[in-house]
């Protein structure tokens, strides 16, 4: 297995990669729990943005830079934008 790591010049040492992946997976699981348990929608949007960035780092650790780009732009920018606009409209109706 270490021969593989030597042959691919852009791969990190295997032990470090495993540690990184396990850490990010734990953070992603905690982030998902946090997003669900927050009941107020406005605060949930901020939590969703942080969760999107955590997911992007996870996809990077899984050697998928394309999916990282997509998740960063969509999950951390576009989705919170749509949610905040909807919440503004709903709040204006409730006044």
């Amino acid at each position, binding site marked *: 297995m270490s021969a593989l790591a030597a042959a691919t010049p*852009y791969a990190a040492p295997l032990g470090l990669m495993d540690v990184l992946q396990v850490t990010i997976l734990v953070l*992603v699981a905690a982030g998902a729990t946090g997003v*669900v*348990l927050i009941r107020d929608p406005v605060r*949930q949007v901020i939590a969703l943005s942080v969760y999107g960035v955590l997911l992007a780092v996870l996809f990077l650790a899984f*050697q998928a*830079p394309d*999916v990282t780009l997509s*998740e960063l732009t969509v999950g951390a920018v576009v989705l919170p934008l*749509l949610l905040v606009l909807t919440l503004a409209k709903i709040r204006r109706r409730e006044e």
Partner: protein
Amino acid sequence: MQFFPFAVMAWILAVGLYGIVTSRHLVHQIVCLIVVQSSTYVLLLGVGYRRGAAAPYFYDIPVHTPAVDPVVQALALTDVVVEAAVTALLLAFAIQAQKRFGTLDPQELVQFKG
């Protein structure tokens, strides 16, 4: 380590479903749906990963280096963008529901029939 990413995927799915079922606000439900969708991305990329391999882009590495599976990455990539648009459609429905029924509580919306 052999099973841990799949266990995390199952946990995210369960937590998201719990949020959908016990939600009292339509927008909170939609965000929990986003969390459920993200669990499928984790599963897709976890299935295609190969230990010690590089990303499947051969611009500056030789063509025969071991690489991870590119097919699941292609699926996850279009998935992420398309489901943002579908979430926008769901949010538009939530706005119209609030205009028509005055409430955003899914447990009260159930009583409106027809």
